[in-house]
């Protein structure tokens, strides 16, 4: 199979095009790093959604609920571990964040299991009902969140070690963004390696191509799908936790805010494609930051424009998944 590198070139092209507009070298680097960090966080949240779609043709409009739940669980854990978070050691800080993230992933993964069983399973293959029922699930989940964590917002402060910026010459790079980038790259590497090099990954890829064939070879694609759904929900929880810590305030609407970017990303990338999702997420992150700097009022609109341009070029998204 010939590799298609054209969409990848879009990323440097976009960054290069933004350079003369931004003007100064140092703010350009800062913006690019911010864009990459934001893009990678969105990628974490979007990857699970695009995989479930690719594998089982299920689009979960309730995905935002897992993002929100991840953010809330992580925030609660971090608040409970206040002494670790306030400590002066980077390792204690990271341990607190790590625990919070694990808790967030566990809770949203568990909820994903329940969500799949109760809400999604009865409507396989019926798109209209899927959209309706998962939206219903989103409504219920958002109300439950308000019930448990009260309607007001939670304010989080990042630990001292992750506050502020590193100065490289006259370029300032926020420390937390580096952490977000590292986590995002690890998730991307883990996902690509799993998909490309393991037996499970092979089955998932085969399932995306032709589910019936995989089933007739004796594999239970249903079980595989539940697994992917749970992992996708857990990743949404992870992304939500990272995003919450990035924003430093968490409201029940956090899922609804981010899910819009997530949808734009998976449309740009091509529904079902992890690689496309990665490229799309970085494009969206960069655009949001460059435009946010140049013309803050139209930032979200610029992402819609980006989506429209890419759909004009490739109507199915950057990397269309073959059969659909």
């Amino acid at each position, binding site marked *: 199979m010939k590799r298609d590198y054209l969409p990848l070139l879009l990323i440097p092209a976009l960054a290069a095009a933004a350079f003369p507009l931004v003007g100064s070298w140092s703010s350009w680097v800062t913006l690019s790093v911010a864009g990459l960090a934001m893009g990678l966080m969105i990628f974490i949240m979007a990857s699970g959604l695009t995989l479930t779609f690719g594998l089982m043709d299920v689009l979960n*409009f309730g995905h935002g609920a897992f993002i929100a739940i991840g953010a809330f669980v992580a925030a609660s854990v971090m608040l409970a571990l206040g002494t670790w978070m306030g400590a002066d050691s980077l390792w204690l800080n990271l341990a607190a964040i790590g625990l919070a993230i694990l808790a967030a992933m566990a809770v949203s993964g568990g909820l994903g299991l329940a969500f799949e069983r109760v809400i999604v399973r*009865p409507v396989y293959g019926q798109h209209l009902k899927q959209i309706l029922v998962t939206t219903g699930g989103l409504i219920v989940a958002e109300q439950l969140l308000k019930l448990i964590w009260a309607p007001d917002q939670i304010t989080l402060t990042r630990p001292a070690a992750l506050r502020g910026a590193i100065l490289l010459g006259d370029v300032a790079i926020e420390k937390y963004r580096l952490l977000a980038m590292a986590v995002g790259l690890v998730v991307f590497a883990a996902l690509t390696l799993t998909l490309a090099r393991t037996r499970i990954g092979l089955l998932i890829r085969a399932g995306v191509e032709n589910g019936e064939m995989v089933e007739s070879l004796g594999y239970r694609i249903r079980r595989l799908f539940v697994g992917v759904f749970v992992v996708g929900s857990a990743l949404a929880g992870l992304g939500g936790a990272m995003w919450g810590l990035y924003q430093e305030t968490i409201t029940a609407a956090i899922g609804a805010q981010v899910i*819009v970017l997530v949808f734009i990303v998976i449309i740009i990338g091509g529904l079902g494609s992890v690689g496309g999702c990665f490229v799309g997420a970085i494009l969206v992150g960069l655009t949001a930051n460059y435009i946010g700097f140049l013309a803050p009022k139209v930032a979200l609109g610029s992402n819609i424009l980006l989506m*429209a341009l890419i759909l004009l070029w490739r109507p199915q998204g950057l990397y269309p998944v073959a059969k659909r």
Partner: protein
Amino acid sequence: MKILRSILSDDLPRSRWLTLVLLAILIGLAVAPFAFPGAKSLNVAARICVFIVLAASFDLLLGYTGIVSFAHTMFFGIGAYGVAIALTKLGASWTSVAIGVGSGLALAIVLAVLIGLFSLRLRTIFFAMITLAVASAFAILASQLSDITGGEDGLNYRLPELLRPSFRPWEGMTGRLIDYYIVYGVSLALVLGLLRIVNSPFGSVLMAIRENPFRAEAIGYRTVVYRTLASCIAAAAAALAGALLALWSAQASPDTTLSFDIMVDILLMVVIGGMGTIYGPAIGAVVLVLAQNYLQALLGDRWLLWLGVAFILCVYFFPTGIVGRLRRR
């Protein structure tokens, strides 16, 4: 009887109970200003009229064409802001109302065509996602461009003199009443118009596309064209509903016209009332607006939770909603 048949486009309620409920709504809303005096109940009645149109136009998409749009509130908001901006900038006259309605309608239709051509060629799931993205971008844009839209606070403006509460042509008649009956009459006409559309040959094509788009295409109907047309009609009706709301409430803000909560309300109305019936969404709108205004105190904060559960159960077990239940007897 024959006249009634042609007014309802030969789409009779086909159930005694449904007929009774619809008659109760029709007459109840007609006599609301006298039967339930008070500013609040009149306001509730006007909102019911507006939301009946909004939900019925959404049903044209969801129930008849089988596509889910999350941008319906965007079109609603465009209609409302069209009138609001025109009345604010051009003064309280009927010409500005006409300009506002006209430009709102035009913008709504242009946007609907653009979104449709971009996303309806592929799969309906694209449409759902893209409308969601576009609508939320629009809502943010509306709250950012505060010079034009008044930002988060929205716009407050004066209505034409005929519609002001202070206008009293004779004893017992006020501008508010005239305003209410304009809202009522236009809403009724719009609902009957939608009923006419879904029962026309065009409506049959939409239902054919809903049942099997591939076969509809094979028979020779360009599904993209029909879906886009349906979404334009729905957008236009939603914009008119928004204009009515703006003419009634003398204010337009992101919360009351563009927010995702309203989109959720519309979904609940259509699904609980009964998709693909036009009558169902009307009943759903009455139930939901009444519940929002009078039951919220009773059920507390959790009522949206229970409605969400009811919504999911409806999709699974009663996909035809209240109307389907009533018709089955």
